[in-house]
């Protein structure tokens, strides 16, 4: 009797589970999940947005909508500190664990693909990215294969306080004139935020073989210009939080930073906030590193189809509009109309940016050039010597 009851209960549970699993397939999703496939089953996702920040708010809004539209899906969201997200994912995914999908910039994409930690998605996404900018798709490719669902562009631009700077500088000369006239600028003193100046002065980091050629032209000129900016009163901060605070508090008039802080800057400065591309230099437009935020599917994902469907729902036109409106992020989709001029400015900056390479060689850019930035800006090295030393160190590490 007892055995029969257990058997009946088991059969009932199996049937209920099976029916539940199908429910999401038949329910049209308000966020586009159905068009891409069913968002069903248990799906674990990781993100590395700041707690309480506008990007986390945007994601939470979208997840809430998707949960409502897909009641059979059990979506677990875990926030991981940004400085640990890649290491944590790599360690856990390597052991067969980790999330089904996670979002991050394409900083570690090449390394993770070479470690076989991410799933190639070409066949799964075939025909589903027709409205995505080619730069966005290319940003998530390694050796010709696609390893993520593109979502946002990330590149730095010039924020300015309209009360202090009614018209933003278009050229490096205009910026210098402004500083000499008493306007103020704070720059994050690191190899990422300052990358864009090199292109404006004709610099090129690597040749086609991955050899560093920054010591040949442009880079040293860019740093000579930055030293002149410092002499004219520009502040250089190694602490990004401190740089942010000084701009948000109105203590400085301009700062170079990315769209991930746009929502937070807006809260403090409101209508006074303006965004423009980094001023163009004598050799052309500035070329900040353009990264692509995507959703990556873990090679060990337990629910691959559910994860891909969720990624597509989080990157469809409606979702990208939410990211743009709430967080000020730049959509990779061409069918999303950006009404906010600030986001539009970031979109322009991304378009002229330098697509972040996914090569092994580029991985050895950060430490030598980070040192070079510190040495040059702190006056411990001339721009020429600093760049030559960094380039030599990069080539030594890359055996070039």
């Amino acid at each position, binding site marked *: 009797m007892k055995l029969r009851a257990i058997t009946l209960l088991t059969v009932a549970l199996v049937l209920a589970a099976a029916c539940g699993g199908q429910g999401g397939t038949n329910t049209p999703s308000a966020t586009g999940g159905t068009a891409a496939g069913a968002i069903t089953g248990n799906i674990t996702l990781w993100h590395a947005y700041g707690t309480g920040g506008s990007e986390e708010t945007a994601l939470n809004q979208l997840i809430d909508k998707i949960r409502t539209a897909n009641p059979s899906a059990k979506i677990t969201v875990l926030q991981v500190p940004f400085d640990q997200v890649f*290491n944590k994912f*790599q*360690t856990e*995914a*390597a*052991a*067969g664990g980790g999330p089904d999908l996670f979002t991050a910039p394409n900083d570690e994409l090449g*390394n*993770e693909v*070479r*470690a*076989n*930690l991410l799933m190639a998605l070409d066949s799964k996404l075939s025909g589903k990215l027709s409205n995505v900018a080619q730069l966005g798709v290319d940003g998530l490719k390694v050796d010709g294969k696609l390893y993520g669902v593109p979502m946002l562009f990330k590149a730095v631009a010039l924020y300015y306080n309209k009360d202090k700077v009614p018209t933003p500088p278009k050229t490096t000369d205009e910026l210098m004139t402004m500083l000499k006239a008493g306007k103020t600028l704070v720059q994050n003193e690191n190899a990422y935020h300052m990358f864009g100046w090199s292109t404006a002065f004709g610099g090129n980091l690597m040749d086609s073989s991955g050899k560093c050629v920054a010591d040949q032209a442009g880079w040293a000129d860019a740093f000579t210009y930055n030293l002149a900016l410092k002499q004219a009163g520009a502040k250089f901060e*190694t*602490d990004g939080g*401190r740089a942010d605070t000084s701009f948000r508090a109105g203590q400085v008039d301009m700062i170079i930073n990315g769209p991930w802080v746009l929502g937070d800057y807006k809260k403090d400065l409101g209508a006074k906030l303006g965004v423009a591309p980094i001023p163009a230099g004598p050799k052309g437009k500035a070329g900040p590193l353009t990264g692509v935020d995507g959703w990556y599917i873990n*090679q060990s994902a337990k629910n691959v189809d559910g994860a891909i469907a969720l990624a597509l729902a989080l990157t469809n036109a409606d979702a990208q509009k939410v990211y743009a409106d709430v967080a000020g992020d730049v959509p990779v989709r061409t069918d999303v109309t950006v009404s906010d001029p600030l986001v539009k400015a970031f979109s322009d900056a991304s378009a002229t940016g330098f697509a972040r390479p996914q090569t092994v060689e580029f991985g*050895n850019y950060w*430490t*030598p050039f980070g*040192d070079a930035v*510190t*040495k040059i800006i*702190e006056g*411990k090295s001339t721009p020429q010597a600093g760049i030559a*030393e*960094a380039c030599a*160190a990069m080539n*030594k*590490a890359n*055996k070039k």
Partner: protein
Amino acid sequence: MASFAITEAATSAPAGSRRGAPRWLTAYLYILPATMIMAAITYWPILFQVYMSFTDYGLRNLRFDAPAPNFVGLQNFIDLITNGITVIPNFSFWGMLSFNLFWTFSNVIFHVTIGILIAVVLNTPGLRFRGFYRAIFILPIVVPTLVVATVWRNMFDTDYGAINQGLAAIGGIVGITPDHFHIRWIDQIDPPIPGIPLPLSYFALLITNIWLGWPFMTIVATGALQSISKEYYEAASIDGASGPQQFFRITLPLLRPAMIPAAMYGLIVTFNLFNLIYMVSGGGPLRQTEILVTTAFRLVNEQRLYGLAAAFGIYTMIILLVLTLLTNRITKATESYV
């Protein structure tokens, strides 16, 4: 009744009882669970680390179904001591080790000296609010290092930090303008003392770690002071010994058995003090305050060079082992004095 039962139990179950399991087997059975757990979480990782140190283990080998790494023999160990690490520009193992040792000894000397002095003061007969002082002084130990490091990092902030603001306030009293106290504690590259190649961030770290480290030494010294018989001091007074003579001839020698092991513990902890350095200076400026463990962390966390980092870890273990044995030999810490 109870004593009878114990006697009976003792006599009826001799060693190597013929009726039950041998006593040695019982003992092994008792420690088996702990041994298995230790084997899984300690011994196996250590053995695996030794294996990794002889390979070029990297991110590509991390996945469970990944190909095995290449065996490179002693290459990692050789690369480290010959400064052949190309991913870190200007890498100098010996320079870093020298700084690590200097950092360790300079800190522990302060910890022990201040710890003993404050313990002696707290031990003064008739001192009021002694319990309150002891409670206050233990605070640095109970606050998590991460919190301590974050607070001190903020206190050293150039523009808004309490240290510079406090110095400016004091300077204001004697007519020095606040501009003179715009001190870049963490970022300044030039050494503050000409001829001594230590950046200002070293001194910031030293101040922080002195605050963090002396209370432990005070607790140890206080305990040891309680065990020193007053008769020694009374006899010394009768013989005409002065206060300093009593301190150096009685107090210090009798504190030694307790303080040397504490100092050795302090040496090991300070040698590997990752949290503080990573959170306060980040090893900067230009890696001038990096120690071995922070560098090993970078090799793993930033470069994903697990094989190299494993070799680094083994070097660290060997250095600490030598340091401990050497200190033990020099100070005769394990000898008894009382």
